[in-house]
């Protein structure tokens, strides 16, 4: 359903000339990414509380096709620089995603935490994983999206704005990616 909505309405998002409110223009975004900052769509990130500078970089990269994901490339292609700024500020103000109700399997949580410490995710993403500036909030992001993204950085199919995550992921195994994603999705 998310796909249908997107197909029908991405034109709307770009039609800034019209008098839609920001809420109306953002409706197609939220159809997939969640109305309240929390995504319920497979492999699709929650946007709430995202760092505005990071969101701006991603929207820019989608528009310029520096980051390739066709639906987002389509969505962003007609956006102006001001649109990109407006939407990234909007995203940053949505409520941040909440952790899942279950606390998670203690053994996996411990493994994930140890990995996060070992690789110093907190250096850039902050100790609470809320991110800063161009470094994204990852706390309570969807587990499937986290695992997918970490895998894409590792195999270099997703190029970051800079190369830092490719370097970071070099020595991390697929099993460790699963544990990291499990932990960060549930961290409290």
């Amino acid at each position, binding site marked *: 359903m998310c796909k249908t909505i997107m197909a029908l309405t991405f034109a709307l998002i770009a039609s800034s000339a019209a008098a839609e409110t920001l809420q109306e223009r953002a409706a197609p975004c939220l159809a997939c990414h969640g109305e309240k900052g929390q995504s319920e769509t497979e492999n699709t990130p929650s946007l709430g509380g995202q760092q505005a*500078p990071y969101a*701006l*970089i991603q929207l*820019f*990269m989608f528009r*310029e096709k*520096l980051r390739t994901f066709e639906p987002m490339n389509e969505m962003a292609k007609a956006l102006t*620089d001001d649109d*990109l*700024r407006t939407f990234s500020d909007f995203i940053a103000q949505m409520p941040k995603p909440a952790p899942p109700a279950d606390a998670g399997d203690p*053994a996996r949580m*411990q*493994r994930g*935490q*140890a*990995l996060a*410490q*070992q*690789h*110093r995710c*907190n*250096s*850039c993403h902050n100790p609470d994983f809320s991110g800063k*500036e*161009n*470094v994204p909030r990852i706390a309570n992001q969807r587990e499937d999206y986290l695992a997918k993204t970490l895998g894409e950085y590792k195999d270099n199919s997703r*190029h970051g*704005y*800079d*190369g*830092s995550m*490719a*370097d*970071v*992921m*070099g*020595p*991390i*195994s697929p099993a*460790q990616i699963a*544990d990291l994603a499990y932990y960060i999705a549930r961290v409290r």
Partner: protein
Amino acid sequence: MMSYSSAPRSLLLAGAFFGAFTLSAAAQQAASPPAAGAAPAAAPALPPGSPMIGRPDNEAAAKLAPVAPPPLPAAPDKLPTAKLKVPAGFNIEVYAAGMANARSLALGDKGTVFVGSRLVDKVYGIVNKDGKRSVKVVASGLYRPNGVAFKDGTLYIAELSKVSKIDKVEDNLDSPPKPTMIYDKLPKDEAHGWKFIAIGPDNKLYVPVGQPGNNVLHDEDHGQIRRMNLDGTGAEVYARGVRNTVGFDWNPENKQMYFTDNGRDWLSESVPEDELNRITKAGEHFGAPFCYQGNIIDQDLGWGKNCKDYTAPAGLMGPHTAALGMRFYTGNMFPKAYKNAIIIARHGSWNKSHKEGGDVVVVKLNKDGTMKSMEPFITGFLEDNKYVGRPVDVMQMKDGSLLVSDDWNGAVYRITYGKPKVAAQ
């Protein structure tokens, strides 16, 4: 010697370091929770290439990380030109804007200014035609095309791991052909993988390969400057012990090559300083990663080494200041004191609590080729310990004016001396 501020080096997180086993490993393990049972004991402490390698465990250090520029170029009316200060008698103006992440500069025979980028996929061309300047995209779909050089009608472009060229580029600026690869025997590391390139007086193309991390014991293919024929053949290593150079030029008086090199991070707030180096013979070793700034043996990798075994810098550029693009000034527009001085862009530090650099400086040399002085030339890129712009490269125009690129704002400025007049229109 440095009157001034200064700041560091490679911006982004792009990864700069490494240090694989060293201190940080120990520190880290100590900090690890006891839960390590399932933790990957075998994995190295930090990924090679992580800028966080070597970071000491304290709050002030934890606040420091490479600074990424805004993705969107600033609109011409939002550029910080009015904040930028130049010495009395000089003028600064916007030469062109709207080029996201504008980095290295090269000048075409017909006056086109080519501009590389690092975080986007484009090489731009600033065309000056009938008094009007416009920006064209000369090539796109490239991967970190930081380096540009021009010779006899041909534009050379260095991406992260390959060099390519476009012949007769200025005759085809409206529909340039795709670049043709001439050399790709290069590592693919992100850390210090982006390249500045230039063509020497020997008509060879000079291509650096940085160290793949902050402080790394690397293999024979890294930490060097290579040179090769303009068709990519005959590549050889010209200098070793080079951590990350993002700018070089040749002394017009004796043809010696000078290059800037960025010192390692996390050693301390005040050392090591970035280096200005001079190559007097092929094959010289400049110390990294064993010896920095000519007199500091690295605390991790320098055991058993002696700084005397390496070529000392011709001068020091300030701690973490990120001395990048540099050119000897040979024009006639600036006062005589500038003749054959080196103008150097210091991109500005990230690995320092109080930022340093973020300026353009003038370096004068002693008769023996070492640094005599370093003075500020353009300042004002730093405001309240934050960047409002970051200079990357400098380039002299035929009329003796100077261009300066700014990757924070995606712009190129022009510096002139004398009564202000409109740029070569």
